[in-house]
């Protein structure tokens, strides 16, 4: 029987063996420093629930740091009955699967019109979703062969957005709202939904996104879907085909990449500044994990305070 209670598997059922690596901000130079660093690593491992633990590798990195690799046995138990899985209403698809769904379901390109409306000049979010560059290692919607993207940019008038969406034959309208003073993001979204409704039948799918939206408010705002912080282009694309292409008998299998690493905070959505295109250009190292950037920003603020 596969039990409800499990432990990690090293080489024997239930042995609980794991590996761990980390860096400590202490030197690893003299024999005394080395002994202290290894002791510190073991203390951390013990506090993390590794007992017994073994420092299999320790190395000085520069004058002030020690890198450690630790193996140990965790005492923790995992209760599978308590595991909760966040359910999406749609499966995550790879770009190839998205393209296929559009080809077979629509038989033409899916048209997406994107904009920042009202006074919002922060195109960071919409660009992170639409530009080829994308973010968090995922290419934006422009990358999808079967999606035609019309990015209207910032401070787009709602009337213009409605007119342009009609002219382009938009299947979906994506609107990013970063500025939230006096709940501008909410009132702008409502105004937009009203304008599309007033424009008559054939309203495109309305999707809004931004860091301060409550994702449960879609109906209240009159839009079809709200995406919050951390949304990747692949999620948006998967949602669009889910909502816009006729469902086929066997739903496409979820993409193994769907939950891949780096599904970071979308858009670096900080209301105070222009953000997130990921590292510029050629240097794509650690393509903009904005959540990590947030952390480092916090760290630096802390450091600033310390000065």
């Amino acid at each position: 029987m596969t039990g409800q209670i499990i432990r990690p598997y090293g080489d024997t059922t239930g042995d609980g063996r794991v590996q761990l690596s980390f860096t400590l901000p202490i030197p690893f130079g003299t024999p005394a420093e080395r002994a202290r660093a290894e002791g510190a690593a073991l203390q951390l491992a013990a506090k993390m629930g590794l007992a017994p633990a073994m420092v299999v590798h320790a190395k000085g990195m520069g004058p002030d740091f020690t890198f450690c690799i630790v193996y140990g046995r965790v005492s923790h138990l995992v209760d599978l009955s308590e595991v909760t899985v966040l359910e999406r209403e749609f499966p995550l698809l790879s770009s190839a699967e998205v393209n296929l769904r559009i080809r077979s379901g629509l038989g033409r390109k899916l048209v997406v019109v994107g904009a920042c409306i009202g006074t919002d000049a922060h195109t960071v979010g919409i660009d992170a979703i639409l530009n080829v560059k994308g973010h968090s290692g995922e290419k934006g919607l422009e990358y999808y062969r079967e999606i035609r993207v019309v990015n209207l940019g910032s401070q787009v008038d709602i009337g213009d957005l409605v007119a342009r969406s009609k002219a382009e034959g938009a299947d979906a309208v994506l609107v990013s709202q970063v500025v939230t003073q006096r709940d501008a993001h909410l009132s702008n979204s409502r105004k937009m939904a009203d304008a599309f409704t007033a424009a008559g039948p054939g309203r495109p799918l309305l999707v809004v996104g931004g860091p301060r939206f409550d994702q449960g408010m879609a109906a209240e705002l009159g839009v079809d879907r709200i995406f919050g912080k951390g949304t990747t282009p692949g999620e948006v694309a998967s949602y669009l085909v889910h909502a816009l292409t006729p469902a086929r008998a066997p739903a496409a299998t979820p993409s193994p990449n769907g939950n891949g690493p780096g599904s970071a905070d979308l858009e670096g959505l900080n209301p105070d500044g222009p953000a997130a295109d990921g590292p510029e250009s050629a240097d794509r190292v650690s393509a903009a994990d904005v959540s990590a950037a947030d952390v480092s920003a916090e760290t630096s603020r802390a450091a600033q305070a310390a000065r």
Partner: protein
Amino acid sequence: MTMEAGGTVTRRLNLDPATVREARELARLAGQPIVELARTHTTVSVERAVLRLAGLEGADEDGLPWVNRLSDAVRESTGLEHGVALPAWDALLAGGYDSLAALARDAARGKVAFRIPTGADAYSARVAASGALQHGMARIDAQRAAREAMIAETAEPPRPWIYLIVATGDIYEDIPQAQAAAREGADIIAVIRSTGQSLLDYVPEGATREGFAGTYATQENFRLMRAALDETSRELGRYVRLTNYASGLCMPEIASLAGLERLDMMLNDCMYGIIFRDINPRRTFIDQRFSRQIHARAGIIINTGEDNYLTTADPVDAAHTVIVSQLMNEYFGKEAGLADGQLGLGHAFEIDPAVPDSFLLELAHAQLVRELFPDAPLKYMPPTKHMTGNVFAGYLLDAFFNLCGLMTDQSILLIGMMTEGIHTPFLSDRDLALENVRYVRDAAGKLGENFRPPPGGFIELRANEVLGEAVRLLRRIGAEGLLNAIADGTFGITRRPADGGRGLDGVIEQAGGYFNPAAELLDPPVLGDFDTERPADGDPRAAAPVETGARQ
């Protein structure tokens, strides 16, 4: 390595010299109309760069730079068809202002009536503007000389140069990280820009401590980092280069600031902004030419962004688009006055490791680039697309990347991180990455000498196949025009029409009598003389133009 030892590139592919010549000729033909466009147009950013080179710094209370305020005021009143210099220096002289900053303040308040001067007034304005720009160019020249002096005082690191990135968002955090990276072995430090800066139509001011996944490129940040790396270069006895990004809507201005503050390398691609940032193609090409003229003068090595195509298009199917773009970058770069030793053409190791013989394909592509551009300091980029989060497999892939780079004599290796795509590198990721490259270099650094792909073998055939495809694509581009080819989605699969994208409203056709005092100092024939007199710094091979000329 062969390059350092003999200054020549080992030929391994038996490329047909006639095909190579044809490829270059086709690139020239495709590029000429674009150069003509750039020579007959200006942009708001080119004009602002003129003001920056004339020494106008600082920003108003809202952080909008004075160069923007002044050029906007001129544009509103007289337009920029004649350039910003004539009306600005005319007003400066007429109003008795003691500085451009004072003029900009009044102009921003609407207190200055600009005009296009004629006759003696025009002459006076030209002389004054030229004097100011000569002073700016002298500052750039002095920085170039200072770089040469620093290299003489410390030492030129052997190639390949190790390129590492810092990106905290806070310049005062970046500095110790950059210094630590240099001590750990980095020869080049790149400070990643805050995301979104490429789409700002102004350059932020001052030292900045908040950024997103990167740090704003500002003149003060440039200065602070260069000063810190000078200190570290002296400490290490090895010149540590500094890199930033002359891309986006402010490309010419950032290039100018880089020259003034002695940055050593700048990302500066002819098409990257168009393809990946949806910046208007005309704007990009005009800005690009001016920025490259500045880089040429400043002795800055440019890095091009062809590696990016391989992150969107398939690296095997689209291998030839990399070659085509490199040839275009080479043509545009040389036309703007860059020497071979300043052309850090980019490419990448991005083939899916599941593809059979992927390493052989990578070797073929990397060696092809090496032989096509024997004198260029090629920049080779590590895998990103197939870094899956399995850090153990990623570490192995990075080792193969390092091996390929060493076997094919690449000049600049951007060091891959096993945590690529997961988070900004941990201190330990960087240390492990350097351990990886050190091991490969020590264990197999001389493997290149023994690397002789057999004639008619897989590698030679593949390289020639890619070159053949590149020539065919260049013929097509020549027939339909580069702007149309870009509009058709030839590069990076994205379609970018010539009149689409951001920044087109900042493109201005030059009127008769257009005057740009910077361009007059930078354009040939001045540049032609300059080019032969001043080899690219940091490239001992470029110091001997005769040798370069004799090679082909």
